[in-house]
Every structure is written in C-alpha cells, then in structure tokens.
C-alpha cells in the first residue's frame, strides 16, 4: 500500500522539480515564499500542479460567507476557500498556499531540512557573554511563591518517620519551618558566537521591483537561517548606485535610485563598517551583495577584485554574491568574479537567481557549505 503512494509521491516530486514531463511544469504553481512577515506568521509554499478544467474567471465568482459586517465591508483572508459543493479542488486554482503559524526557529529547521543545509561551524572566539537564570537548585529559604511542594513533603515525611510520629493508618504530614524547601536559581553564563550580516544591494535604475522582491525574499530566508545558527545576530544594510550609504531595513528594500553603478563604493563602505564595529577575531561576518551584474567600468571592477582579494576576504567567513536576472543588466560582474576566483572558491560564493523559483536553489548555494 504505502509503496504505491511513495511511488506516486516520488513521481510528483520529480515533475515539480522539472525532471520529467516538462510540459506539466508550466502548471506548477508556487505560493509566495513569504506572505506576511511579522508576528512570526509565515506562508509556506506547497507546490501544486493545477490540472486545467473549464471554470469561471477567478475573481468573478464571489460566494456565500458567514459572520458580522455590513455590505461593503471587506471579508477576511482565506475567503472562499471552503465553499460547499466544489469538491476537493477548491476554486482558487493556482493559489494553493497554506498559511502556517510557525515560529522562525521552526521555519529555519524546515528550511534546513528541505535544503539539506549543514550546520554552520562558527569560527572565532566566543566572546559574547550571555547570562540566563535557571531554576535548578533547592534552597532552605526562599519566598513562598517558590515553595517546592514535593521536596517539602519528602523532608517532612523523612523527619516524621525517623522521629516516629508518622502513623501509617492516619497518614498526616505536618511540615514545620525547617522542612520547607524552595526552588533556587543558578546563573548560567555562556559564551556565544556572534555574527553580523551585511546586506548590500545595487539600487541603480536597472533593478526593478521584481528584482527587489527576489532580494527581499532571499534576505528573509538567509536571515532566518543564520538566526537559527547564531544567537544575537546583527544586520546592516548598504545600498549603492554610484555612491554607497548605510540605511535601515525599511529603506533598503524600498529605495529605487537611478544612475550609474560603482560597486566598489559599497565594498569600501562594507569594509569600513567591519573595521569600526566588528573585529574579525570576535565576529562571524557574512557580507551578501545583490546586483544585476552591471558595473560602471572595468576599472571599478578591478578595484572591487582588489578590495576582495586584499582585505575583505580575510575578514569575512564567506563573501556571497547573488546576481538577480534583469532585463537591463549585462550580468558581467558575475563573469568577472568567476574569472577572478573560479566557480568553486573557498570563501567566495556566487549564485545566479533567474526568477522567484530560483531563490531556494540560490539559498542552497550560499548556505550549503556550512561556513
């Protein structure tokens, strides 16, 4: 029995991965990678193959719902997913996402499992101290709120039996003050590894909304994964066109500048940030740079290579470059990096992200090495 379903399941997975039956691939729908972030609520994509049928236009239909509200009020999310009489398929074909309440920790585990990501081996000294209090000990004194009932009972019982005041037929236990036991805490000091992610993004004219959406999604997953590996992670954001500046997260994803591109400006700023705030001996440093691969000049590209080679690489765990496919970008920078460092360099990881579907693979490129 279960072999049958395993066989069908394997077949389905292969189709989704595009290994077989290419013509079906176009019906594969992926949900949004993240619907809403915040309140730790995340949408998990479940791939589906939508068998076409004659059906009504998606939003034409409307339906019947239940609840409070007056005409004109918006109805909540998930509307219409469970209408009667429409069989198993559901009428929202093409938008089969399941919304899951997951903590980011759980999410990271799932991601790690799905992509078979190795655990990261941190480097550097454990310099960051964190203190947690744990209630593991027992004390003879303490506040009543921390009274340990079981221990107290046991002490009383011990005392009464040894002093012969315990009557098995009438098992009454009367604690006195010196029987009382209380929970007590110990402070646990741990030395943590610390990490910083420095995101750099090209915001020149050629990076469109779609490209930024890809970067945003990818950054979210990278963040999630690295957070699961390090306590107390820090993130910094740099945007650049011909000049670079540090911004907050909000601005990082929203800004659209126009104008030329000098990648070296971002790398210089990145180095400056590292030098002022993050000593490489104490921090695990992860710079990620996303761009569409256009740089202003070969001269500037040489400056970049120099910077990487001479200083940045020595200070960071890995240097990750993600190239987002764009209609306007030439993709030259990827080639240049590849030429300089080769496709399989120790600490320079290159990845091309063609479209949304490519994000998972790209994350695997970046994080699959466990550094």
């Amino acid at each position: 029995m279960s072999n049958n379903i395993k066989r069908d399941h394997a077949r389905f997975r292969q189709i989704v991965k595009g290994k077989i039956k290419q013509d079906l691939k176009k019906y594969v729908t992926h949900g949004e990678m993240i619907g809403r972030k915040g309140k730790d609520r995340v949408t998990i994509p479940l791939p589906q193959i939508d068998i076409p049928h004659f059906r009504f236009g998606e939003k034409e239909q409307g339906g019947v719902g239940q609840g409070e509200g007056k005409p004109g009020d918006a109805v909540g999310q998930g509307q219409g997913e469970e209408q009667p009489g429409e069989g198993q398929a559901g009428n929202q074909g093409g938008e089969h996402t399941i919304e899951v309440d997951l903590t980011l920790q759980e999410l990271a585990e799932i991601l790690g499992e799905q992509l078979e990501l190795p655990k990261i081996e941190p480097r550097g000294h454990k310099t960051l101290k964190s203190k947690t209090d744990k209630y593991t000990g027992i004390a003879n004194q303490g506040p009543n709120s921390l009274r340990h009932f079981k221990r107290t009972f046991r002490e009383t019982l011990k005392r009464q039996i040894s002093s012969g005041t315990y009557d098995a037929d009438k098992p009454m236990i009367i604690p006195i003050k010196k029987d009382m036991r209380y929970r007590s805490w110990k402070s646990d000091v741990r030395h943590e590894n610390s990490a910083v992610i420095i995101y750099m993004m090209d915001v020149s004219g050629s990076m469109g909304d779609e490209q930024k959406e890809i970067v945003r999604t990818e950054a979210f997953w990278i963040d999630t994964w690295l957070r699961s590996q390090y306590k107390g992670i820090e993130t910094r954001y740099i945007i650049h066109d011909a000049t670079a500046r540090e911004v907050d997260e909000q601005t990082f994803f929203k800004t659209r500048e126009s104008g030329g591109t000098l990648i070296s400006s971002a790398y210089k700023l990145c180095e400056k940030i590292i030098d002022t705030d993050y000593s490489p001996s104490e921090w695990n440093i992860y710079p990620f740079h996303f761009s569409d691969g256009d740089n202003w000049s070969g001269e500037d590209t040489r400056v970049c290579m120099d910077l990487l080679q001479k200083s940045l690489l020595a200070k960071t765990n890995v240097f990750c470059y993600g190239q987002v496919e764009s209609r306007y970008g030439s993709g030259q920078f990827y080639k240049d990096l590849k030429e300089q460092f080769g496709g399989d360099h120790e600490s320079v990881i290159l990845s091309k992200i063609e479209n949304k579907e490519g994000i998972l693979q790209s994350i695997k490129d970046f994080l699959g090495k466990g550094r």
Partner: protein
Amino acid sequence: MSSYGFNSSDLTPELVAIRDEIRGYAQGYGLDFFDTIFEMVDHEQINAFAAFGGFPVRYPHWRFGMDYDQLSKGYEYGLQKIYEMVINTNPSYAYLMKANDFVDQKTVMAHVYGHVDFFKNNYWFSKTNRKMLDTMANHAVKIRDYMDRYGQEVVEDFIDRCLTLEPLIDPFLPFVERKRSNEPDHRESVTQPPEVAEEVGKLKITRQYMDAYINPAEFVEEQKQRQKDQNQKARKNPPEPQKDVLLFLLENSPLEDWQREVLSIVRDEAYYFAPQGQTKIMNEGWASYWHSKIMTQKALKASEIIDFADHHAGTLVMQPGRINPYKIGIELYRDIEDRWDRGKFGKEYDECDDMMVKHRWNKELGLGRKKIFEVRKVCNDVTFIDEYLTEEFVERFKLYTYQFNRRTNQYEIADRDFKKVKEKLLFQLTNRGQPLIYVTDGNHHNKGELLLWHKHQGLDLDVKYARETMRALAEIWKRPVNVETEVDGQKKLLSYQNGEFTERFL
C-alpha cells in the same frame, strides 16, 4: 482484508467493545447501514488512503502523490489532521487513527455510522457501484498493464488529458432511462404523418386549381428547406445537447482501444465520486448530527465531555467569512427537526405574518425525526437548500454573499438578503459550481469539428483555463475543437486548431 491491501491491524478488544456499543446505539436510533469494517491505521497510512480517495489501491498517477504531499505536510506542520474517513462500499470500510484516544474513536465510529446510513439510503447514492474496491483494484491492474506495454509517460500523459475533462459528466444521467445517443428515436418517427414525406412542404388543398395560390413555388421551396434542416437535425450527433461529454468522446472519438479503456476508467470513477460532491452538506451534516446525538445522549462518560466538546466544536467551527458544510448541514437538520416537531410548516404557518406568533408556534406534532430521515433519503444539497433553507436560518447564522470589488481589490460583503444568499448558494452547489458544458455537434462545419456549448449563466469562463482544456480535448478528438460561450455579454466562439487558439465574436 489483506486481499484488498489495507495492511492494517485489527481492532483491540476494547475497541471491539466500543464499536458494538456504538453500533447498538446507532441501530437503536433507526440508522440503517451496511456492515461496517473499521481498520486501524497510523497517520501515514491515513494520509495515503486519503490521497487515494479512501481506497487502498489506485492506478499509478502523480496527482495522488501531490495530494499525499499536501496531506503529510499539513500533518507535519500541525495544520490539519484527518479524523475520519469512510468508503461507500458494501461492506463499508472506515479508518480509525491508532493515536486517537477512546473518546475520539467513539465519536468517529458514531460519525461513520451516520455516513454509511447515508450511503445506503440516500437516493443519489443508489446507483453507485458498491463493489468499488474491486473495481478500483481492477482499474489499477489494467492501467499498470498499459504502462508496461506502452510506456508510463505515454499512458500518464493520456490520463492527464482525461482528468482535464473529468468534470464533464452528467451526474443525473444514471437516473434517466438511457437511450442510445446515436440511434434514431423510433417512437418519434412513428408518430410522423407518412404523407409529409410524399408532398414535401405543400399545404393540403381540396381544389386543384388553388394549388398555385396556396402553394406558390417559393413557399414550397422554403418548406422543403425547412424539412431538410429538420432531417439534418435528426441526423445530427448528438441530437440534443449532451452533458456527458466523456460519453460522447468514448463513443465518437478516434481512440485506440487502450485509450478508450483509460477514458472509460476515468469516467467510471468520476461517476462513482459524483454523489459525494452532490451531497457534501447533507452527508457531513447527517453524520455530525448523529455523532453529536449518540455521544451526548448515550455514549459519553463524564470524564470525556470536555475532549468531546473540544473536538466537536473544532469540526463545526465557522470562521468569520467562511461557511462550513458540516455546520450548515447539522444546523439545517436540527432546524427541520424542530420545525416539524412544532408544526412550523405548511400553508397556515407560511401565511402567518405575526413574527411573535410564528416564533412561539407549537402544534406538538413530533414529526421531526421522521422528517429528517425522509429528507436524508430524497434530497441532494441543491434540493436540501432549496427546500429547507429559511429566512430565519440565514439571519440566525449571519449568512451573506460576497463579491470581488475590482476597485478596492478585495472581497467585500455584498448582501444579506435571504433570496440573494440562497440564490448564490444554489448556484455554487449546482454542477458543483462549475460551468455547464454540453456537446452540441460532433460534425461542426460538416468537417468533423467538435462544438461544445457553454450554457452561460452570468459568469464568464476563464479563458486561459478554457484554452488548456480545449488543447486536451483536441488531442483526444484529433480535429479542431470549438466552444460557444459569452464574454462580457457578447457571444463568442473559442476555437482550437492545430495548436492555435483563436476567438471571434458570433
């Protein structure tokens, strides 16, 4: 059991005792069900069965794997859990999750007996194949055999096409006396007056000299043409628009034997599952009604009440904005029972317009239980809602219709009017909320093209999907395929020919 490949374990003695107890209660209430066999399964097994539509063996196809993927991920992430599953066969098979505690098992058993009673007695299930376990297994053997012979991909691709057309059946067909669609209907031809054939198109005359006036040449010509058209129509295939498109394809398309067999298998299975789609509200409502009744009045121990209430509430919860067929179903049965107990029906009640009187109405007829058994026998979801959904009910459960507002780009509450809500519900339930598609001509343009007709009822087809569906159709029909429909209020013909898709206004 092993011959069916359930691969499950037997009930423990405790569960046997519980089953006998619950079965006794169910029979005591007058439920009348097939012999029901419970199988103990774990979550992986139940996900597999569920993906297979309840059956242990199905033919190889990726979509079962897809459903399994969804179900097992849903289970892993803690989103959903299948509580109960039962197959409509005689004897019936139902699954019990090993991990459930006794109160859940009791509830599931009571629920299952409700379903099986429904399978056995509801009219719309009366034509289903109760030996479907064997049939499904045979289908699997056949298709596996074809895959060995013609290649997995070839057969699977063909199944994909058939599945695209799967909804194009006529669930009412099993209830109509079948007449062969492509044979002429003899009864009609006998009633035709024989002289018509002799003097085509001429009106009867008593005086010969009036002939030229009464039957002028052009009139005769016109009549002849009309006659010819009628003959044409009689020879048209199908003579009347036919909703069972799959049957038409089986009988008329140039398929190889194995393809015909595969299409026929897909069609058989679609017919087998059709009544479950037609009675979702009723069937789930009925089973919920009985598990609730049996548990609360007979089977529950005091210690189990909280768990029962928790799970029962979980299945019946109405999230804001959605409607839950379990909830609508059970409440409608309860409403009907109450109305017939108190005599709240008939002319006198309907014509009473004093709301207070109506509210307190009680003739102490006590006909409720009898009435709901009758309803479960004759109705399907459409007639159930049509007949028994009342204005008071819609108000009590705060039902509304919603629409998509293009301006604000969101779904919005449209109306709380009883008639509108009922109309919308009925529309969604009719043909399972899918467009009505008929074959009207298998020799369109006199060139063997296929002509389908979308009976437009206010909603346009999704053209993207229609195109893909027509592509599948054309691969089976092997000639151009046309669909007559309406787009934005104008009649349109969609055509698919040699890989090209065209539309034109009619």
